[in-house]
């Protein structure tokens, strides 16, 4: 799976014409490696469970590179049945999940708020974009 990064970078290197572009590709490559590392261990899967494919990994990386550095670094990446979930928590009170389905072209978000140990607000929204996810993460970081 690690072969994904050199191929991705090489295919895009011809377009690199500035330091900003080069840094952008470096961040992308680092992010792809972060996702690959997070979904590689066999202990993450049940026997015969489907693993995320290259397109799903790239889809997850595409989301992560668009986020603020603190959200990039605090993400908990989790594979599930061929999908990849990107998870964030603010203590026990709020959490946000971006669900990247097989193919990685579109994604969904799930957000949840708790009070007194019970879920008081939750919503799954399909076909969202990075701006909506960033808005949900801002909501999560804000106090209840």
């Amino acid at each position: 799976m690690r072969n994904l990064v050199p191929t991705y970078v090489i295919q895009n290197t011809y377009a690199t014409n500035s330091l900003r572009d080069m840094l952008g590709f470096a961040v992308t490559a680092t992010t792809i490696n972060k996702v690959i590392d997070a979904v590689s261990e066999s202990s993450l899967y049940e026997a015969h469970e489907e693993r995320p494919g290259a397109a799903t990994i790239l889809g997850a990386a595409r989301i992560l590179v668009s986020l603020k550095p603190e959200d990039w670094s605090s993400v908990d990446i989790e594979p599930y049945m061929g999908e990849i979930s990107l998870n964030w928590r603010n203590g026990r009170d709020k959490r946000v999940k971006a669900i990247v389905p097989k193919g990685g072209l579109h994604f969904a978000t799930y957000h949840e708020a708790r009070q007194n140990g019970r879920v008081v607000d939750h919503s799954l929204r399909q076909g969202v974009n990075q701006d909506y996810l960033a808005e949900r993460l801002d909501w999560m970081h804000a106090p209840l």
Partner: protein
Amino acid sequence: MCDEENNLVGDLIADETVIYRACSKSTFLNKSKDTVQDVAFYKQGQNHKDGLSLALSSGDSVRHLGTNYGVIRIRVGDIHALGLGLEVRADLADPSHVLLRNLPCMDRTDDEKQRALMVSSELASLAEIESASPVPKPVDN
């Protein structure tokens, strides 16, 4: 709800009973292994046709798994008290096995998946870690 099969589903289990679920993958616990994650209660309709599998003892929960990464536990009364329509019932085919019924599925409609994410989160917050390391299978005499 995606419990398609009702054969061999028995009576409700008493509220004071503690039931156990094997960690069939490491993601059932968080990375520091001190919290149960909601994925421990995700149900796939195609795999769990009669309900989510739990057991009446830690050993019985791992009996049918090749590998496990620990065991979690939860009190039946806490599940029933959620008021979400969940039921813990006996499995008439195996006295050590119980079924968590009426759990929404992750692999059907978006509405059901949204509910599945919420319900699994509620269950994970009630569950406790029995063992954060692999539990040996019981030796049958």
